[in-house]
C-alpha cells in the first residue's frame, strides 16, 4: 500500500465514521460537529485529487461559515430529542421506501459508468487548480456562472426582505445624530419670576 493509498483509506474511514455518527448521535450539537468533521475530511479528499481550490473553498464556506451559523442555531434551540424520535418504528417502512428509491436513482445517475473510469493521470507540477477553474468559469461557463450569481443575489435580497420588520417601539440610536447634537437641542433656559412666599 502506497502512502497515498494509506491517506485515502485513512481519510475515508474518518469520513464514513463521522457521517454515520452524525445521524446516530443523540445530541444535536455533537451531530453538527460530526458533520463539520465529515466536511473537513472530504476537503482532504479533494486536495488529494489535486483540486486544492475546491477543497479549501469547502472548508472556507461550509466549515467556516455555514456550519458556524448552524451550530449557532442548534445551541440556541432547546430540542427535545425524545419527541423527535417518537414514532420511529411506525415511520420506518416509509423511510425505507424513500431510502431505497434514492439509492436506485443515485445508482442510475452515477452507477458503473463513473466508477469504472480510468483515474486521470497526474497533472504537471506547475498545474494550478485555481487558474484552471477560473479559465473555465470565465470563458466556457460564463453565462451559467453569471445567472447563478444573479439568482443568489435575488435570494439574498428576498431573505432580507422576508425577515425585515420595522419595530417602531424599539429605541434606536443614530451615532451621526448624536455627534451633530447642538446645545440648543438639549438645554432650555427658562426665565421665571421668583415665587412669593
Amino acid at each position, binding site marked *: 500500500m502506497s502512502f497515498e493509498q494509506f491517506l485515502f483509506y485513512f481519510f475515508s474511514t474518518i469520513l464514513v465514521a463521522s457521517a454515520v455518527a452524525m445521524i446516530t448521535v443523540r445530541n444535536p*450539537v*455533537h451531530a453538527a*460537529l460530526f458533520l*463539520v468533521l465529515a466536511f473537513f475530511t472530504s476537503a482532504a479528499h479533494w486536495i488529494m485529487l489535486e483540486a*486544492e*481550490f475546491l477543497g*479549501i*473553498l469547502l*472548508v*472556507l464556506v461550509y*466549515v*467556516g*461559515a455555514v456550519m*458556524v*451559523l448552524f*451550530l*449557532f442555531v442548534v*445551541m*440556541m434551540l432547546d430540542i427535545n430529542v425524545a419527541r423527535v424520535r417518537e414514532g420511529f418504528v411506525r415511520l420506518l417502512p416509509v423511510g425505507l421506501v424513500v431510502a431505497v428509491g434514492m439509492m436506485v436513482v443515485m445508482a442510475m445517475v452515477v452507477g458503473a459508468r463513473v466508477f469504472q473510469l480510468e483515474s486521470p493521470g497526474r497533472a504537471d507540477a506547475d498545474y*494550478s*487548480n*485555481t487558474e484552471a477553474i477560473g479559465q473555465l468559469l470565465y470563458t466556457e461557463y460564463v453565462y451559467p456562472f453569471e445567472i447563478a450569481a444573479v439568482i443568489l443575489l435575488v435570494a439574498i435580497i428576498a431573505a432580507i426582505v422576508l425577515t425585515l420588520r420595522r419595530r417602531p417601539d424599539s429605541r434606536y440610536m443614530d*451615532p451621526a445624530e448624536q455627534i451633530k447634537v447642538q446645545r440648543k437641542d438639549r438645554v432650555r433656559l427658562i426665565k421665571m419670576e421668583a415665587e412669593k412666599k
Partner: protein
Amino acid sequence: MQQAMMEFWDGLPVIVQIVTKIMMIVGPLLLVVAYTTLAERKVIGYMQVRVGPNRVGPRGLLQPIADSLKLLLKEVIIPSNSDKYLFLIAPILAIAPALAVWAVIPFDDGMVLADINAGLLYLLALSSVGVYGIIIAGWASNSRYALLGGMRSAAQIVSYEIAMGFALVGVVMAAGSLNLGEIVMSQQGSVYHWFLLPLFPLFLVYLISGVAETNRAPFDVAEGESEIVAGFHVEYSGMAFAIFFLAEYANMILISALTALLFLGGWLSPFEGILPESAFALPLIGWLLDSGIHWLLIKTAFFLFCFLWFRATFPRYRYDHIMRLGWKVLIPVTIVWLFVLGVAFALGIGPWFA
C-alpha cells in the same frame, strides 16, 4: 563546512526535515507570544503612567516565564454538567488553526514551509476554522456567561470575515496570484509599488477587521469583563486557559505579519529603488538596508504595537455598533474600492496596474 552541513541536511529523511522546519517556526513563535504578553503589560503600563511588571528578573523580563509556570501548575477544573470531551477539545481547536496557518507564511524570498498555490485561501479557511474553539468552549462550559461570549464572538467573526475576504480580493486582483510569495514579489520596485497606496481603503478595512477577528479591544465584546465576566473562557483554568491565550496572541501576530506581507511589501526594503545600488554593496549596513527577513519582523512588530496601542486608546464598542460597522461601513467600502480597482485596471493606471 557549509557544504558538509548541506549534505548532512539533504541526507536526513524528509519527515525529519519537515519537523525541524516546523520547530524553527513554532519555537520562536511561542517565544514571541510569551513576550508579547509582557510587551502588552509594559506598553499599556507606560501609556497609563504606570511601570508595569518589574519584579521577576531584570526589569521584569522573566515575567512571562513565571506566568506560564504558574499556569502549568494550576489545576484544570472541569465544571459540573459540562460536556467533558468538548470542554477539553475546545482549546485544541483554538490553537491548532492558529499554528497551522504559519505553514504558508513566507519569511523571506523562498523561506516558507509550504509554498502552495492557493496560500491566501488556505489562510482564510484556517482562520475561519479557529472560531470553533470559541463556540465550543462557550457551549461546553455549561455557563450562561460563556455561552453569551461564544455566541457574540461567533457572530462577530463570521461578519468580519466577509469584509476581510473582500479586502483580500483586492490584494489578489492587484497581485494576480493567491500565492503569498508572489503577492510580495509583485510589490517589488520601491515604496510606491507597495499595495499600501493603491489599496489604502482596503488596508484600513483589513486592519480593522483583523482586530475584530482576533477579539481584541476595542472589539472584545466576546470577553467583555464588565458585562459577561470573561466570556467564552470564564470556566477555564490552568493550562486550558493558557492555550486560549496563546491562540489569541498567535492570531494577533499572524494578522500583523499578514498586514505587512500583503500591504507593506513583506520582507522588501523601503529603500529599494530609492538609494543607489552602491549603498547596498556596503558591508553590514548594505545588508541592513537591503531586503531581508529583518524588514518583515520590523513591520510585524509595528502592527503588533498598534494592537496594544488600540487597546490602551479606544473604549469598547457596543455590540450593535460592531455589527453596524462591519456590515454597513466596511463591506460597502471594500465593494466600492473593488470597482475602483477594476476601472484602474481597465485604464491601466501606473505604476501598479500598467
